[in-house]
Every structure is written in C-alpha cells, then in structure tokens.
C-alpha cells in the first residue's frame, strides 16, 4: 500500500514522551527530518499568520518562533495531523501573546486599497478580504481562519485558542455574521 505523505511525516515526528527518555527532542529529529515537517506545514501556517496579522514581517517572525518552540519544547509523540494542530496552537498562542503586549494589534490598511479599482478580480478579492479582516477583532480573524481555511472543528479550535467549544460556536457565529456583512457589498459590487 502506498504511504501517504502525512504518514511519512508521522513516522518521522516521533517525539520522546518522557523527559528522561532522551536528552533533547532536537537531537531526536535531524535537520533533514525537520525539513520534511517544515515543507508540509510552513505554507499554511505562514498564510494563517499573514492572514490574521496582515503583516508579512510579523508573520515571518512568528513562523520561525513557532518552529523554534516546537523543537525546543519536546512535545509528546504525535501523528502528522497532531503536529499540524500543535503548530497552529503554538502560532495562536504567539499571536495572543503579541496582542496582549499591545504589539501590532491593528491590522494594516491594504496598500492596494488606495489605488484605483483593479481589473484583476483576484487582487480585488484580496483587498476586500483584507478590508473585512481589518474591521474585525483579532480573535474573530483567528476563528474564521481556523474554521474555514483550515477546516478545524469547534473542539480543535477551542484547543488551539484556549476557549471552550461552546464559546467557539457563539464567537464563530458572530464573526461569520460580521464578516458576511462586510464582504456582501463587495460581492454585490463584483
């Protein structure tokens, strides 16, 4: 039976589950193995961080910090899906820490918004989404992204964001309502 890419990653990411079992998790996974985990997960996480912060420089920095924490913290053994969720959890925690410190809480205005309407629908969509995201709270942006782009369940989002599943359901409903209100005029215009 052919081995799925995710299975290959799962086989590689075998973290020690006891502190005394190994000196360091970083010694357990070599650079090449890390490379395959990184290749499979870095793009979605970078897109998440950029989509939620609206800033590429911040997203790059948080992405690197996310993987550093994964390597240094020695999480217990987990499969590919577990690793992906764990990475999103670290990234969400880093975002929250940043916002708590009051750093870059404001979503930047899309640079293209100042220029005349573009014929390229893809560019216009990006502007519309970023304009809508800018009007939303940081937590709402996170919720919408995890639910609709990453397809996470309420329980998974709750785990990643440190909320209860019930809160996620309510907050997601409100966020969706708000986002729809912001995106609808753009869609009608299109």
């Amino acid at each position: 039976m052919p081995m799925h890419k995710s299975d290959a990653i799962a086989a590689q990411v075998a973290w020690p589950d006891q502190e005394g079992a190994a000196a360091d998790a970083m010694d357990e996974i070599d650079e090449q193995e890390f490379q395959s985990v990184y290749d499979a997960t870095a793009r979605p996480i970078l897109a998440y961080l950029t989509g939620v912060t609206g800033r590429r420089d911040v997203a790059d920095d948080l992405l690197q910090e996310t993987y550093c924490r994964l390597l240094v913290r020695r999480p217990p053994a987990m499969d590919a899906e577990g690793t992906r969720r764990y990475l999103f959890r670290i990234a969400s925690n880093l975002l929250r820490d940043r916002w708590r410190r009051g750093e870059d809480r404001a979503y930047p205005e899309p640079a293209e918004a100042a220029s005349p309407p573009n014929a390229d629908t893809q560019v216009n969509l990006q502007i519309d989404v970023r304009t809508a995201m800018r009007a939303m709270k940081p937590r709402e942006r996170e919720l919408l992204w995890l639910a609709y782009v990453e397809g996470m369940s309420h329980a998974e989002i709750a785990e990643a964001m440190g909320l209860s599943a019930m809160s996620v359901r309510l907050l997601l409903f409100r966020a969706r309502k708000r986002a729809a209100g912001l995106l609808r005029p753009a869609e009608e215009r299109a």
Partner: protein
Amino acid sequence: MKRNRCEREIEVVDALRTGASTAELDGHLRTCAVCAETRLVAGSLLRSAAALRTQQEPPLAGQVWRRAQARKQEMALRRATRPLIFMRAVSVVCVIAFAAWLLHSFWRFADRGLIGGWGAMAAQTAAAGAAIAVACIAAGAWYLLHEDKRQNGAISST
C-alpha cells in the same frame, strides 16, 4: 425565529475546501441563508488563503533550524549557570545569617560582662561556622557534579 445555525455548514465548508459539491448541496445553498453566508465568508477566505500560499515563500527551513539550535544553546547555558547563581545566593544568605548570629552572641556576652568568656566560646563559634561552610561547599559541589554527570550522559546518549 431567525436561524443562526445549520447542520450542513460543515458540508458547505468541506465542499468549498475540496471543490467537490453536489447538486443537492447547491440546491440547499439557494434556500438556506446560514449556509449562503458561510459560503460567502469561507469562499472569500479560502481564495485569499490560496493566493497567499502561492505568493508567499516561507523562510528557509535551515534558517529556522539554526535559530532553534541557537535557542537550545542559550537554554543550555542558562541551565548550566543556574546552580552557580543558586549557590551564590545560598552563600550570601549563609554569610549574612552567620554574621548576624556572631554579632548577636557577641553582644549577649558583652551585655552580661562576660566578654572574657566569649573567648572560650570562640572555638565553638568557629567550628559551627566551618561546619556551615563545609555543608555549603559540599552541597554546591554535589549539585555541580550531578549536573555535569547528567549533561555528559546526555551527550554520550546522542
């Protein structure tokens, strides 16, 4: 009453993510306001995310790996110096306690006019001080040796 949830929302999101919709689901979307709203938001976000994923190149894995290695070394250094800081703090506390005890003893004997007798107590005082110093040194040395042994074991196991 206006509905705020639909049990088919997950199906709508899955269909958008995989691009595999059914005629039946399309029919439902035309009649369900909640799912239409979900399609609008999820669809816009998914298209935006797809664009971001193709446009953006993540930093090189090697760069992230090196940053993690540097972090690990920094942590190891902090771990290695922790016993030294701890022992220094313990030494300071012991010296202060010993000095206070010495002063207290001295003034007690001086008040009673037994300053001459203090000389007799000096040997006991010195012995107590020496015992405390030896205990501190022994504890510090044991901790450092234990830490060193643990680190050596870690290196040899890799």
